């Protein structure tokens, strides 16, 4: 997995250079791209971080580039840089799921703060995705009977009731219960419920 960094796409060299300098002073990694086409050509699905995209560019515009990224199911947060009068375009981009937009000229560290937030969001999403993967693999390791027992535990039923319902002995239920807790790596029914809620959420 590559390291999180900000991908700056702008056709103005001065802007790219200035942003790189500013980002460096705040310790944010960044990669510079002179055009949307160059970025799209190089893009990999496992890239992390965020994209800083100028709306008005020679060749492919920022909005076109954004559309292409949505098509390719790129989940990186996108921050648009707009000039004077491009605000309506930026708003429509926001509606399509862009992370944010910022108007030129930017004041102080406004942009960099948003970039940091975007990278944080991306990292968070990444972690959530990873968690989900773990829970899913643990769930997959349960046997059919164990899964049945787990469902009933989640409904908050006592061992005795579960035994009656499944027509098995209390002891067997207890054995299943401890197996489920082991496999799901939880200590209590409450913890188990929390874990599964996260998965659904």
């Amino acid at each position, binding site marked *: 997995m590559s390291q999180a960094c900000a991908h700056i796409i702008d056709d103005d060299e001065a802007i790219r250079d200035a942003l790189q300098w500013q980002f460096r002073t705040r310790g944010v990694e960044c990669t510079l791209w002179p055009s949307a086409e160059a970025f799209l050509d190089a893009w990999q699905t496992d890239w992390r971080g965020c994209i800083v995209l100028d709306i008005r560019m020679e060749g492919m515009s920022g909005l076109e580039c954004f559309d292409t990224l949505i098509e390719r199911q790129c989940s990186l947060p996108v921050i648009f840089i707009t*000039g004077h009068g491009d605000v309506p375009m930026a708003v429509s981009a926001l509606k399509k799921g862009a992370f944010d937009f910022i108007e030129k000229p930017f004041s102080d560290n406004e942009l960099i703060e948003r970039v940091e937030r975007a990278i944080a969001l991306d990292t968070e999403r990444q972690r959530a995705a990873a968690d989900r993967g773990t829970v899913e693999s643990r769930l997959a390791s349960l046997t059919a009977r164990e899964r049945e027992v787990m469902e009933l535990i989640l409904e908050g039923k006592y061992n005795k009731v579960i035994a009656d319902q499944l027509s098995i002995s209390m002891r067997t239920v207890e054995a299943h219960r401890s197996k489920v807790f082991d496999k799901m790596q939880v200590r209590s029914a409450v913890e188990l419920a929390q874990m599964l809620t996260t998965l659904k959420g």
Partner: protein
Amino acid sequence: MPATTTLEAPPAPRNAWIGSLPYAALVLFLGAIALLVWLTREYDADEQQTTLITDVLWMEQNLRFQLDRNEALLQQLGVELLTAERPSAQADAQLRQLMSQDRGIVRVLWINADGQIMGALPPVLDSGLVGEADGAVPAESVMKLARAVGRPVYGPAYPVVGGRHHFEVHVPTWSEERFAGVVVAIYSLSDLVTRELPWWFSERYRVAVLDPDGREIAAKSKIAPLAAQRSYTTPFEPPGHGLTLQITAYKGETRWMPVLLIASIVLFGAIIVWSVWQLRRQLARRQAAEQALRNESAFRKAMEDSVITGLRARDREGRITHVNPAFCRMTGYSAEELLGARPPMPYWDPDQLERTMEVHNQVMRGGTPNEGLEVSLRRKNGERFDALIFEAPLIDAEGHHSGWMGSVLDITEQKRARELARQQDERLQATSRLVTMGEMASTLAHELNQPLGAIASYNSGCINRLEAGQLDAAELRDIHDKIGRQARRAGEIIRRVHDFVRRSEPKREALLLNTVIRDAVGLIEADARKRRMRIISELAPDLPPITADPVMIEQILVNLVRNGMDAMADLPPEQRQVLIQTRQRNHMLEVRVTDRGCGIDPETAARLFQPFFTTKAEGMGMGLNICRSIAELHHGRLTFEPNPSGGTIFILTLPIERP
């Protein structure tokens, strides 16, 4: 309903036979005439036949009487001829007379009881020579018969030399109770027939004697009758022996009177028939023409009712004589209200009576121009509308000019649409100008944003370093170099804009202000007419020339006049007037543009020349600003002051260059 002269439909024939009565009467009349002619002719023929028979009977009677008389004479002479030695002189004379008179007797012989010819007149030299045909003459059998019966007996006819026919009569004679002999008279048939008939008879009829076989053996005339239809045959007795008389009427002379009468009757009848036929044809033609006219009239009427153009006819005095439904709809008056109306018409706009009257008189004098006349009219409900009128002279059937037919088009909607289109067009142009300007401003903003954005970022980075206390002099110097470069880049953009603006410097040339003003007025005049504005120029003569850009000065004037017109849009048309004056003041020329509009309130006055300030819905707020800039470029001034009689006066002053 408009008064329309419609042709009445012809009454349906109540009785079809009444129509054919004249023809029936004519046929009967002609039939009666023909019958009359035929009857007359029949009657005529009957009459002629009767006359013929009467004449024939008379002739037969006449012949018989003649022959009887000859017999008596011969009997009387016979005694003396046969008994005396020599006939007495008296007898001789009587005999000769008998011969000489035209009685048809060619010879007389007297024969004694022994059959010896005692004598003859004319004398016969040899008794043998007497026989001229079959048998002896005189025929012995006849003589015997005469002696036996004791009275005259006629012998049969026989041919003699020369194709003629003779017959004889034997008259027995007794003397002292003793048969003394016979006197024979030989008749020539043809002589008898020819000579014994009076002239008038032979003129009328052809008389022929036919033998028993029907052969003609003697005739009064050699000419055959022209028509044999009227003839009569009667037995010829004496002499008998099968001889017949055939009398044929010559064709009687044509009796001209009846012929003429009949001919004229026939002629007149023919004329009557012909004229009736002609009359009938003419009637049919007339009916067809009427039908066509009725159809045409209905067609025209439908056409007239369907058009949305108002039509109205006026006589030469201007009285309305006809209006169509469209005209009634247009004006709101009914046809009854309009017919006979005289000018001023009820539908004239009372505010423009004078002008409308003028138009009316112009029409009465000689119609309208091809493009029509525009007048303002008023409906019954008081609503005004603009109409376009076309007039054409109305020429009646005799070719007299009897009035005017006018078509009236309601062009209110059209004018409104045109005006709307014009306004929309102007708005569109204004919008497009705005869009262009917005585009330019946006481009400029983007261009400037690039270096400014870069500078801001470098700057933020530097501050970040300062706050973190990581000061690397070389690095910071490099960054500041970059900041300086971006600042120069921004300056370059500003300089480019300035260059662009500088390119529209005035092109100065010597010009006459009045000429420029006239050009400007020419440019705006069409628009002014459309908006019913009047532009009045009061230009001072002999103004010195100035050095200026004519296009720019023209632009100022067009702008000022247009502003003046916009200010007066709500005034009644007669008050809409822009006055342009020029005069010289010391070393300046002054142009005053005066309107009578709503004037300028102090608040507006303070911002009047500011860019992007406007009081108009579609305005850009650049007009007066540009005007003042142009004035200043020419070292002149543009000011304004209120018009004492309402409105505003804009004053443009331009310096006269000293030579």
